[in-house]
């Protein structure tokens, strides 16, 4: 797949940019213009997602849909679909099948409206040595050969492990991130203050910060969004994999984009509470391990060897 470039931003700051910044700063102090004013203040005073009343939530969603539709010049929907009763999502990844093609990485970017520049990837694929096994100290993320898989290597995609005991939600000073009843760890982008404590706490590098203003070409923008998932993010907040909450919570649901695109069937997704699900079969019958098990984060992301 296309190459990942190690983020290395050349810091180019001209005088004009400086003046622009100064103007923006002054603009911050001045009251917003009449038209935008209501929206800006509504956003500023918006309550925490879980504290919104039904009416307030409706107002928020209407405002967001209007803003996004205008920004991307297409009809954007922002869903708030709640967890499905009796469902606890689990993910399985077959290390004996994964070929390291990174199709999942880019399907995820497309589905979840990640910033293209600066590049944000919720899935990182590690190239590991077969001789050394799952030893992260020899992991290479920026492998870039003509063809994968390469001899002597195997591949391990890492994304949010949707821990049962997430260290990231515990440390958030404002409860802007939490675990939903179906096990998905979500972020309220309108509540996150951007302190990045959760990123320090996450043992899997699953959380990503919008260091700059995310760029998302209107043509490529996925207009089917969820408030807690793939809606466009502002700069200065943390984001992460949500098991494609906008797909998996629907009834009938859809598989996460990464699962759907995998050309070798290495990815499995299902309901851990359903004894007949494929994911339960794998956990019960295959050799399974959890990443950094010793930290007792209890991931609901299971690596296994099917063959």
């Amino acid at each position, binding site marked *: 797949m296309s190459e990942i470039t190690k*983020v290395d*931003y050349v*810091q180019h*700051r001209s005088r004009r*940019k*400086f003046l*622009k*910044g*100064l103007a*923006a*700063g002054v603009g*911050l102090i001045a009251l917003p213009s009449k038209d935008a004013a209501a929206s800006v203040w509504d956003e*500023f005073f918006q309550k*925490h997602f879980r*504290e919104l009343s039904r009416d307030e939530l409706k107002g928020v969603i209407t405002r967001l849909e209007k803003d996004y539709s205008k920004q991307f010049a297409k009809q954007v929907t922002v869903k708030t679909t709640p967890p499905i009763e009796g469902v606890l999502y689990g993910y399985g990844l077959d290390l004996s099948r994964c070929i390291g093609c990174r199709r999942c990485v880019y399907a995820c970017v497309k589905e979840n409206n990640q910033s293209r520049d*600066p590049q944000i990837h919720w899935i*990182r694929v*590690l190239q590991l040595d077969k001789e050394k096994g799952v030893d*992260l*100290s*020899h*992991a290479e*993320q920026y492998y870039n050969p003509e063809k994968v898989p390469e001899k002597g290597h195997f591949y391990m995609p*890492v994304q949010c492990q949707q821990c049962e005991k997430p*260290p990231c939600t*515990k*440390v*958030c*000073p*404002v*409860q*802007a991130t939490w675990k939903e009843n179906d096990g998905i760890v979500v972020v309220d982008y309108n*509540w*996150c*203050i*951007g*302190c*990045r*404590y959760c*990123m*320090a*706490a*996450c*043992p*899997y*590098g699953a*959380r*990503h*910060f*919008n*260091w*700059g*203003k995310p760029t998302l070409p209107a043509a490529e923008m996925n207009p089917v969004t969820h408030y807690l998932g793939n809606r466009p993010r502002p*700069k*200065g*907040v943390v984001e992460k994999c949500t098991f494609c909450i906008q797909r998996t919570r629907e009834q009938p649901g859809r598989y996460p984009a990464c699962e759907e695109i995998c050309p070798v069937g290495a990815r499995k997704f299902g309901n851990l509470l359903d004894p007949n699900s494929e994911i339960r079969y794998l956990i019960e019958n295959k050799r399974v391990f959890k990443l950094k098990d010793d*930290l*007792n*984060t209890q991931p609901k992301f299971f690596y296994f060897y099917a063959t």
Partner: protein
Amino acid sequence: MKNIWNFFAGTLMLISKGSKAYYCWVLFLLVLMAIGASAYVRQLDEGLIISNMRDQVSWGFYISNFTFMVGVAAAAVLLVIPAYVYEWGPIKEFAVLGELLAVSAIVMCLLFVTVDIGHPERFWHLIPKLGLLNFPQSLLAWDVVVLNTYLVLNLTISIYILYNLYYKREPNHNFYTPLVLLSIPSAISIHTVTAFLYNGLGARPFWNSSILVPRFLASAFCSGPAFMLLIFLLVRKYTKFKIKDEAIQKVAEIMAYAMFINLLLLGAEIFKEYYTATVHLDSFQYLFQGLHGHSALVPYIWTAMIFNITAFFLFLVPSTRKNPITLVIGCVLVFVGVYIEKGMGLVIPGFIPDTLHEIYEYSPSNTELMLAMGIWATGLFVYTMLLRVAIPILNGDFHVADDGVSSYIGDDLFFVRQENGEEEEMVTEPKQVGE
């Protein structure tokens, strides 16, 4: 109410007066603050992308400075304990200057955190009731609580005492003593909580060590007093304020002990990591030797080590401790040494290698440097202003005039080189005006 206004108006008048050197100093700080502010405006506009922090190293220079300044703030107790608990005169005379230093340091801490977060305008999410402070789960929430408590306590105590002295009243012992006693555990708590903030993360083995809290405290009791001593030596040289040698000696002695404990704990940690040599050694290797060809912090940490050990001996040996020149050298060495060790030296290796063992070498960008410089200037500006008021009050050069309304200002210059031999070993002069 009217009295408060008169006092306030008087202080405004006072801070506008001063020698040429005073004006130059203040102007210099204001220029640096303006540079910092312009950097911040740019950062607000473009986002933190103009820092060199990235997902791999998600905290950098700002949080390093924050961590260090918490230590400086906490160190005010080293004056408060001998002054108020042991009622030791020589320190009690200027303990209030330590409290004001704590105030300035906390102001810097709050600024460093503010510039580090992505959405500073959402600060109200941290206010209980109004927002949703994640207390007691998040250690950052604890930090918000203890830092603000400590700030309010120190402000209240120092302003209360100074205000009463201004009106020539004896400060009510029963009012401020409980506050002072409360400020002691809260000084310990700000540093403990800040250490816990790093300590409680299983994802970061470099910080996940049980001696992090004592290490923090020990190093704080070196760096804070070092900064205070430097300032007190300046104050004694360039203002009319007198500080006795024995007070300075006492503080320097405490620093020697604290530095010993600091080095001991660091040594214990280094032994454990290197002798067991698990994968968790990586961060230590990065810091002390370099890892896979990346060694940006190595020269700094060794500088810090040499500085700290040299300073330890300078403070340990009575003759070098008493010699004003080696005393100043020791203070500078400690200050720089701990700044490296408990600043970047503590924060950055926590992220290198990152949780997926990627190495992203971090060094602060120009914006980060300029902004940090601006915040340092702000802290010094705040402290200068506070001293400008506090010192004349303590000297009896600033108090209410005989009419009970206007102020008497007896110190128009503030910042002037004092002629009489302050560098001499002062033999204990008994009679000294107490508070």
